[in-house]
């Protein structure tokens, strides 16, 4: 590897060194403040390397990793999200018994996995990134070892994720068997020359890979784990799964399938069509039946990734912008939502029942206002980032005349209003008589306040003046 190659992967090196630093610090002396500081410094330092990489000419660091603008942008996004989640986790961790520092190690490793994913151009790095991410997540999901549903969720996630990894590997093997290469570029240029007999295996391979990726994104019909894991995992970890984990996988999906030009092949198109439609409809319909806020958000996230698939399938020039913008809007809104949930969660259990939010507006108006704003953003109401994001999704679909998909998208978002409004109504309804004596819900700690203010301002800023970001996205990515 050349000297330039080392510079290219500096952000990843820094990010990989940070958990090691935390481990060493923990070995010397356990101190939450120190390990949190190291985590923050590591994330910021890694972020600071991105502009340096941008000045490099050759960004193909190795055969496995490319640090092109696309990768840099997404790595930046993932790092920024993780940074916000560190702030979000701090008070939550401190209020829970048990060792805390390992949480940062796992969180950093998971972020590293996600960053490797968005930079990978090869099945090997793809698989490595995914596994670093997944294995850290198994532990993170069950981080509350005393919580029965937490452990249950972790085991469920472990078993299902392992099974889906099997599918993914088998798929990769089939593709490799037909193409003879594991590099995305090679696959893209060689697969058109395949004869009919070989093509069947190639497509089967891609189909099996879709199973593995679909599992990570929790799209229908690979979504079974999502509600349980969302419910069982600690609230900040759930936020991580919803944003960094799924975002990284989606960025990879976009890169890989764009490169192999999957739209040229009818069967792949219909696979994604069915997945998108099923996710949008099933996600929203199932969310209607939940009484648990985390489960509602889990189903809503299934639907949101269905929406994203609509733009993913569109072939116009709005596509990458639409996906990126929507992912950013979704990151902001889901982080904000889980931020509110985290604030209200005590050491005994997370505040995930709908009843926990009854009358919140009358006791903690600002928390309720932030939550309302974030839910409206998820629902795609103007003045929020979600509106612009959804508008771009629909525009990307309309540009490619995917009318069936965007009509379903519109129908699905109308359905979704029911459950978003349900949460909002609960927050604003007056508490029942005996609740007068109930203790006030907790206030946001300073670090959580930072998260809520930051996400609210971002959601508003993107909702009112998105031009700046929309201007940046294409110039950064292409």
């Amino acid at each position: 590897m050349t000297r330039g190659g080392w510079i290219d992967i500096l952000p990843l090196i820094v990010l990989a060194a940070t958990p090691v630093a935390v481990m060493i610090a923990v070995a010397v002396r356990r101190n939450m403040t120190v390990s949190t500081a190291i985590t923050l410094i590591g994330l910021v330092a890694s972020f600071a390397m991105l502009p340096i990489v941008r000045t490099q000419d050759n960004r193909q660091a190795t055969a496995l990793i490319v640090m092109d603008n696309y990768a840099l942008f997404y790595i930046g996004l993932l790092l920024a999200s993780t940074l916000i989640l560190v702030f979000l986790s701090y008070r939550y961790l401190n209020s829970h018994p048990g060792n805390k520092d390992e949480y940062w190690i796992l969180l950093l490793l998971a972020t590293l996995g996600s960053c490797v994913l968005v930079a990978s151009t090869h099945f090997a790095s793809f698989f490595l990134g995914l596994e670093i991410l997944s294995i850290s997540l198994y532990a993170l999901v069950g981080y509350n070892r005393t919580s029965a549903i937490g452990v249950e969720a972790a085991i469920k996630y472990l078993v299902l994720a392992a099974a889906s990894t099997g599918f993914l590997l088998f798929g990769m093997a089939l593709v490799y068997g037909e193409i003879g290469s594991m590099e995305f570029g090679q696959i893209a240029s060689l697969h058109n020359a395949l004869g009919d007999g070989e093509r069947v295996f190639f497509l089967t391979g891609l189909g099996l890979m879709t199973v593995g990726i679909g599992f990570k994104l929790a799209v229908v019909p690979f979504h079974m784990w999502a509600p349980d894991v969302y419910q069982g995992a600690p609230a900040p970890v759930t936020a991580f799964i919803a944003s960094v984990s799924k975002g990284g996988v989606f960025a990879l999906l976009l890169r890989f399938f764009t490169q192999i030009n999957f739209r040229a092949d009818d069967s792949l198109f219909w696979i994604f069509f069915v997945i998108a439609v099923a996710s949008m409809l099933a996600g929203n319909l199932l969310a209607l039946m939940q009484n648990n806020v985390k489960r509602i958000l889990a189903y809503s996230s299934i639907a949101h990734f269905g929406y994203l698939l609509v733009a993913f399938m569109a072939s116009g020039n709005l596509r990458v912008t639409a996906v990126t913008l929507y992912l950013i809007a979704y990151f902001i809104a889901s982080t904000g939502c889980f931020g509110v949930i985290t604030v209200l969660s005590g050491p005994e259990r997370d505040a995930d029942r709908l009843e926990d939010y009854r009358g919140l507006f009358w006791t903690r108006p600002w928390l309720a206002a932030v939550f309302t704003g974030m839910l409206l953003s998820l629902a795609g109401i103007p003045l929020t980032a979600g509106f612009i994001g959804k508008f771009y999704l629909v525009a990307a679909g309309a540009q490619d005349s995917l009318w069936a998909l965007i009509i379903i998208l519109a129908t699905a978002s109308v359905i979704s209003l029911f459950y978003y409004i349900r949460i909002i109504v609960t927050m604003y309804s007056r508490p029942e008589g005996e609740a007068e004596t109930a203790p006030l819900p907790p206030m946001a700690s300073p670090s959580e306040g930072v998260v809520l203010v930051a996400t609210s301002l971002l959601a508003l800023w993107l909702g009112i003046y998105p031009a700046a970001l929309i201007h940046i996205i294409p110039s950064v990515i292409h």
Partner: protein
Amino acid sequence: MILTLLIIWAFVGGMLAWISGRWSQLLPRVISLVTLAINMVVLIVMWVHYFGPSSPVPNGSYVIEVSHTWIPQLGISFHLALDGLSMLLIILTNFLGIMSVATSWNSIKVRVGFFHFNLLWIVASIMGVFLALDLFLFYFFWEMMLVPLYFLIAFWGYEKRVYASIKFFIFTQAGGLLMLLAILGLYFIHGRATGVYTFNYTQLLGTHMSESTATLLMLGFFAAFAVKLPVVPVHTWLPDAHTQAPTAGSVNLAGLVLKVGAYGMIRFMVPLFPKAALDFSGVAMGLAVASILYGAVVAFAQTDIKRLVAYTSVSHMGFVLLGIFAWNQLALEGAIMIMLAHAITTGALFMLCGDLSERMHTRDMEKMGGLWQTIPKMGAVGMFFAVASLGLPGLGNFVGEFLVVLGTFHANTTMAVVATLGLIVSAVYSLWMLQVAFQGPNVHGWKLPDMSRREAAIMGTMIAIIAWFGLYPQSVLSTARQSVDNLQQIVTTTKPAETQAPVDAPTLVIQDEGKTQ
């Protein structure tokens, strides 16, 4: 600039009202009143300046136009423009805003700050809808008014408010999303044909497309506007929302939200798709007549006085739809007149219902009866607005309905004749409502306080306006004349001259005065 400021000022006023609600109950009311009053003064000055008897004829379609780039990547701009039609409607918006603040002065007691925040944001977004000339901006404001309206119904409404508010939200949102799809369809069709991707209304006019595409896109717009207007059979949200909303909410819904649907048809749907709209006019007029008759008959069957008034809106807005699809000068001016007059009369009737239910804690007409004996002033006011609503000559509603029927007669005689039946039924339900609620013996022995000075002042203003509309409609119609001409111009230039004949024939009936100004 002034247009942007008017909207922003209302938004800012709303935020100030919310914040001030922390310290006092009075402050939000005063802030809202002052905010809207300042807007109102500016608007009246603008009205006199631009549309007064001595003001010059504007060159171009709009007297004021502002445009800032907003999201240039998609050709979206912050484009506002004012013409006579918008002028009338934003004055109406502000006026009803003031009336809503006044009418809720004593009846809203919880979360006063947040209430006024919602009220002013509704006013601001509706002004935005009436001024926007960029389709994205139009959709933006269109969606933005939903949330505050939803809050208004859901928090300060009557017993079934949650159900009603969710129903309202879902209906309008569903319609709005169909419109969004149509807007995007138009955007891409225009972009592909000309290479210019823009949401600018003036540039999108006259986009060439196949007939079936135009019909589909027009139906997308129609869905959104028909829900708001509302047209039978998508009216079912209205009786619930209007009945359950607090008085200010009902006034805004009936006075403004319904008008937004009509405005959208006049400004956007017909001019953008003239041919498709013409082909569709038979169906639309049929729906209009169905709304007129259905609304009137169902209104007659109600026992809840507020629900009765709500159903009359369905009937009256049927006339507006009829006038829009007749699309000649008389019918359009009639439709605009009904929009204004209906906003005032129905607003006043809702306020009256609010005042009654505040005193009696019921809206059931069977529990009323003989109220005239105990509250004669309110009885008289109720009488006035009931006969105004049934279309008594000399009052505003009559002018509107007369012009619509006259204009429709030229376009489609059968429909005009059938629609006239609605006028008869409206007399029946209006007088019946009066009879049941106010006349007869006071069998339940009600003893109620009559109108307060505040209520009397509100009602007095509304009565004066309706009488003014009825006696001197030309002052209003001449303001709208230029925009009606422009809109018709757009339609006739983009479409072969097949609808010319009925347009010109009846113009001499009342056109004389407009030309001299």
